[in-house]
């Protein structure tokens, strides 16, 4: 019997044979595009620091300057960062490293489709590959910053708890949230470019509203917001694992993880259903 596996049919409405058929197709799509995602990542990465003088030093320079700025604000009394037994640079570097995994990932994802618009409208390939590959450079930055953080730890003679080894587990919901929001924003940004500007503004706002550079406050508006802010929970959990050795918000973290997974799956499915509508509007 001649197989028809290489027959592709295009119709106005997609049908993949029911609820589970869609998931099967979605997974197949991502699996088949893993080589391409890797290629695109290698491409983005290898051109990233071309025609720059400082090159990869930028990945180190940005957090150092941010932390230094906050220290200066604290010293001059403009802003109080609270007191803690942990040296401030150590404390801030942990928060900032985790935060930039989210902020960088979100900005990268939301721009990923529009940046590739010239070939989205010319070549057919799984668009997921663009969003995935956009996360590659963010991950590399994350590792560079993790190394920088380790150096700051050593400099101040602070030793982390052994539970630091569990940090990657806590970062899974963070990545799921990033992709969950990022996949959706990438699609909408392809149609309305407001997203790109909006994302930068909102992320800047949340950077200050989330206890990234300061310890979580116990009262006031930010404290109440932090209770509902999944990012605050994740960053707090990472600090717990690094400095304390036990989670202070285990239930909150569990809720956030379930929320992150649901958000990611819903967003991925929506992306898959809508990606073929993007080319004509981009």
């Amino acid at each position, binding site marked *: 019997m*001649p197989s*028809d596996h*290489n*027959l*592709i*049919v*295009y*119709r*106005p*409405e*997609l049908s993949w044979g029911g609820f589970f058929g869609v998931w099967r197709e979605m997974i197949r799509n991502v699996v088949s595009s893993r*080589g*391409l995602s890797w*290629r*695109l990542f*290698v*491409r983005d990465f*290898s*051109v990233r620091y*071309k*025609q720059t003088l400082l090159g990869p030093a930028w990945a180190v320079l940005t957090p150092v300057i941010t932390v230094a700025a906050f220290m200066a604000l604290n010293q001059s009394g403009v802003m109080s960062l609270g007191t803690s037994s942990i040296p401030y640079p150590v404390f801030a570097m942990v928060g900032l490293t985790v935060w930039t995994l989210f902020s960088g990932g979100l900005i990268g994802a939301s721009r990923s489709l529009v940046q*590739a618009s*010239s*070939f*989205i*409208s*010319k*070549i*057919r*390939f799984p668009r997921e590959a663009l969003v995935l590959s956009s996360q590659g450079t963010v991950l590399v930055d994350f590792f560079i910053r993790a190394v920088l953080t380790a150096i700051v730890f050593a400099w101040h003679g602070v030793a982390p708890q052994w539970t630091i080894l569990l940090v990657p587990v806590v970062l899974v919901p963070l990545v799921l949230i990033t992709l969950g929001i990022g996949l959706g924003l990438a*699609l*909408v940004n392809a*149609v*309305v470019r407001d997203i790109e500007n909006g994302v930068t503004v909102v992320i800047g706002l949340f950077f200050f509203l989330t206890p990234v550079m300061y310890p979580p406050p116990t009262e006031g508006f930010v404290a109440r917001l932090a209770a509902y802010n999944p990012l605050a929970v994740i960053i707090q959990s990472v600090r717990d694992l690094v400095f304390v050795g036990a989670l202070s918000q285990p239930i909150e973290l569990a809720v956030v993880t379930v929320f992150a997974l649901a958000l990611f799956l819903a967003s991925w499915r*929506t992306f898959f*259903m*809508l990606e*073929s*509508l993007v*080319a*004509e*509007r981009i």
Partner: protein
Amino acid sequence: MTDSLIAVRAAQVSKKFARRLKHSVRYGLQDMARTSLGFGRNSNRLRREEFWAVRDVSFELRRGEVLGLIGANGSGKSTLLSMLNGIYRPDDGEIAVRGRVAALIQIGAGFHPMLTGRENIFVNGAILGMSKAEITNKLDAIVDFAGVGEFIDLPVKHYSSGMYVRLGFSIAAHLEPDVLLVDEVLAVGDAEFRAKSMERMWRMVKDGAVSIIFVSHNMLAVEGFCDRILLLDRGQAQSGPKSELIARYCGDHVGRRHERIAGDAREKLVAPIVDSSVATGDLEVRSIRITDGHGIEKEYFRPSDALQVQIELNAQRRLEGVIASLVIEDPNRLVISVERSKYHGAPPFTFEGQEKLLITIDPLNLKSGAYFLRTAFQDPTLESVYCLGPSTIFRVADEMPNPSGHEGFYRPNLSWKHERGGEKSE
């Protein structure tokens, strides 16, 4: 689609677009919201400010067949190709494609200017769906065919536009597709590469390995290369015999040229705009025949042959002082010659009722190729146009070699003489 000999089948395929970006954005968000909530898009109906870019197009393409898509700019050719390529989802109808599709739609799309040619081959190959092993295997062949030489390890931003296109074509051509979509790409690149890429496509077709859908404004290429033709006219397809469709397209083309998008760079090269609607209709061309010098109909000529155009006319009323014009154009509608009877010493014509006009060109002095010939009849002041005749095609087959593929149109009567010594001979 059970018949495995059919490579592509389009059934009543339609695609709509919004006229303005504002509506496109709004409808885009609307469609996304509806689809993600599980409602249908009702895509087969037009909303305000939408139009059908492609409407109810149906065709079948068998394996090893070449289908030509012709039509004016904006007639829907590229939109149709994009749907066949899976980039746009049809708004109505259905498309089935068997096997791997490669599109030479915009060559080099996805090239990164900072990366070397070699690195770009890997990226572009992956985007087109090749595995790493496959690309590695074909790397030498791709580089060799592209003919970019040692430039392969330089960033492509230093490439000339020709090299850029050659590399892009070479990657896509080595994809070994089952269906190849080609859109006007061969208009770029030098003559040698054009010939080389046509030859490669031709060989792929002859091997029965590939089916091609070929979009071009070059009627010579379309006529020579395609088995069948589909003429798109404002999104709707017409099929029929090749020569008839080409003639219809070329005839339409002249009249419709004023509707074409302004700023089209080619516009500057083509004929001065002649709008068929300006013709008063006092005169009618009943038939036009291209013959040898003795009145025998003929299609192929040699450069040294004589060509005689025989035109049968019907004047609705008595017309005095009519001036006839003869226009010869190349297949891209580039004007080669416009000749008016009054500058050739012909007396102004007086037409009444049935008339016959003979125009003789002797010798033709044209090189190999297809040419279009049309006529116009005007009043003595050249202010009003009585009639624009239809386009007629004739071909010249030149016995002399034409190594670069394109060495102009004009074959002068010339002789070569060598005089020894140059200045010494006083």
